[in-house]
């Protein structure tokens, strides 16, 4: 392991990679601060740049952008009550009231310190758990991978929230359907190309990611008048107040930060859960832990209420790299985009990554930590200036983002037809968003589709064309059971509860 860390450190501190880290953190913070654009969009916008870099520099850049965007999201949550992404919604609960009291500087500092501790604890856990899981997963067979992918897809749906499970599942299926467009990899048959040569290679992942997460988000923000109003609030952030925390305050939030970091990491490792659920969970747990008097302060500018989600979402962002790096299965929309970018640059994340590309594996882990340091020592003092960048008029900013998205795709394929396809996908994505369909599961389905089909085909070949591996191979059976529980557990519980409730009502009625 120490040898690995050494490889990681030497790769990550190479001047060019350090530069990528700085650029990534800075660009991520900026994009993350723009209302409506979150980490997924930020990472998607970086993909075309990573194509020209070697894989470790590319993933270092994307990792920097990832936590930069999460940090940027917190900043806009605190300063203008407009979370850049879902995982920082909770940050606004207590961060914005603090800013309204004139303690914006303190809130930003606390958010940065909590994120730093969350990221540090997450990185330490990652160093220990990732290689362990990678070693274990070397014994995984195709059937286990198939089951893991099913788990990944069902878990995303299961964590989509009440009422959205069905829609998230539908989006997973849509992603899988889109992944089948093009030439079948095993026997060369063309599927769903409708005779067009443009679709023979299938849909480009980059095109899909950019159209759904960069273009659609930007066009939606233009369509939505309220974001303009939020934007105008940015101009009032010139005075942030003191950024210092007192010893008593640090003492008060320290246990919260540690607790939330551990919780955040564990939630982040679960496929599908991710930073948003970690932040909400940590906030809820802290409120339950708080004394009756402290409980009243939650939602009105409580320090613990701000520190908990910040530590948790950063630790979860780090945690979500565990399934990505060790199993090759992304746990969230952002890691799904990263997986696609890695595959495009010729690297297949998974247990072999640890052996074949130790430099990529370890440099990501080390750069995670360095990224947190960069955010703390560079971004925090620079926040007032980065906030100034947001004063660039939106009529200038929006066409520039559109231009970067379009040329990003064009510069990879050099096919102007892709721009038209992007516009069509963008229109479809806007329609889906208006109908409340989540888009991240679609991207996950699209990325996992090819691998899922390959592994299922191989598993069937190995097991004499019988599906018996689903119940005969213990590991596969266990993973499939977890997947089914993730999917049907909650509805089943609800059903049992309602039945028990009905019976109790009946008993009461009978006794009367």
């Amino acid at each position, binding site marked *: 392991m120490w040898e690995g860390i050494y490889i990681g450190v030497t790769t990550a501190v190479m001047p060019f990679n350090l530069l990528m880290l700085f650029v990534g953190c800075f660009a991520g913070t900026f994009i993350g601060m723009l209302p409506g654009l979150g980490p997924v969009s930020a990472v998607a916008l970086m993909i075309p740049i990573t194509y020209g870099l070697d894989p470790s520099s590319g993933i270092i850049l994307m990792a920097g952008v990832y936590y930069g965007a999460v940090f940027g999201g917190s900043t806009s949550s605190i300063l203008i009550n407009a979370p850049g992404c879902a995982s920082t919604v909770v940050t606004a609960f207590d961060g914005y009231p603090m800013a309204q009291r004139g303690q914006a500087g303190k809130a930003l500092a606390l958010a940065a310190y909590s994120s730093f501790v969350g990221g540090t604890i997450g990185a330490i856990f990652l160093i220990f758990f990732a290689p362990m899981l990678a070693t274990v997963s070397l014994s995984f067979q195709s059937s286990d991978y198939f089951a893991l992918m099913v788990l990944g897809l069902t878990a995303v749906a299961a964590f989509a929230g009440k009422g959205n499970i069905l829609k998230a599942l539908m989006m997973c299926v849509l992603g899988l359907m889109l992944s089948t467009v093009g030439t079948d990899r095993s026997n060369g*048959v063309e599927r769903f190309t409708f005779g067009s040569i443009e679709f023979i290679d299938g849909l480009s992942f980059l095109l899909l990611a950019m159209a759904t997460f960069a273009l659609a988000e930007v066009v939606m923000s233009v369509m939505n008048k309220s974001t303009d109003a939020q934007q105008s609030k940015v101009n009032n952030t010139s005075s942030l107040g003191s950024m210092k925390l007192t010893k008593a305050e640090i003492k008060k939030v320290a246990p919260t930060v540690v607790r939330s970091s551990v919780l955040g990491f564990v939630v982040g490792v679960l496929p599908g859960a991710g930073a948003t659920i970690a932040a909400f969970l940590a906030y809820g747990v802290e409120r339950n832990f708080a004394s009756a008097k402290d409980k009243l302060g939650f939602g009105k500018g409580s320090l613990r209420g701000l520190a908990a989600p910040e530590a948790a979402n950063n630790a979860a962002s780090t945690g979500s790299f565990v399934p990505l790096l060790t199993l090759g299965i992304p746990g969230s929309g952002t890691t799904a985009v990263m997986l696609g970018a890695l595959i495009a640059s010729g690297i297949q994340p998974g247990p072999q990554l640890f052996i074949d590309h130790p430099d990529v594996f370890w440099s990501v882990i080390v750069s995670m930590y360095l990224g947190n340091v960069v955010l703390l020592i560079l971004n925090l003092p620079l926040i007032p200036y980065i906030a100034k960048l947001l004063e660039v008029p939106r009529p200038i900013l929006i066409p520039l983002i559109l*231009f970067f998205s379009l040329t990003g795709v064009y510069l990879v394929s050099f096919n102007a037809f892709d721009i038209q396809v992007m*516009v069509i996908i963008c229109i479809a994505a806007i329609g889906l968003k208006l109908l*409340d369909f989540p888009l991240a599961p679609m991207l996950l389905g699209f990325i996992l589709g090819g691998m899922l089909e390959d592994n299922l085909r191989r598993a*069937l070949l190995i097991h004499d064309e019988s599906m018996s591996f689903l119940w005969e191979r213990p590991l596969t059976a266990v993973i499939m059971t977890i997947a089914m529980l993730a999917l049907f557990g909650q509805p089943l519980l609800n059903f049992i509860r309602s039945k028990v409730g009905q019976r109790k009502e009946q008993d009461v009625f009978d006794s009367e």
Partner: protein
Amino acid sequence: MYMTIAKNRIGGLIFLALSLAYGYSTTLIPMYPGDEYEVFTAKTLPAVLAIIGVILSLALLFGSRDEQKSELPKLDWVIAAKLMALMVAYGLVLEFLGFLIATTLFLICGYWLLGERRKTLMFFCSLPLVTVFWYGLTQLLGIYLAPGAVLQWMGV
């Protein structure tokens, strides 16, 4: 304009139509001789997906008990349509006008569509910026960008 729409119904119907069309297209996938004896062919996964798609959309259509009637937010559709048209136009003229001219025009039109009227700002945020970008790509990164049919005709 406020519209009251049962989003789940519409979503379910669209997805049902999509799944049925996908299922029909699955039947058009060509097969090799002998494929009928194989358990897993190029049609297998698409067929399974089409069936799951139909089941899920029916579940959404008939399964949502609560009358989920919600209002669409107030959105500016005109500006979205204009931006889309601008992007389509950019895609159409990119290879004809070349990267430099097409992108400069795209940016200026984009700024103008979104309400920017300061000519100096519009100029400095388009041509110089695109030129720097183009220089970086072609000269520093060595990426070849075709000069565009128009410039070739003019012999540039």
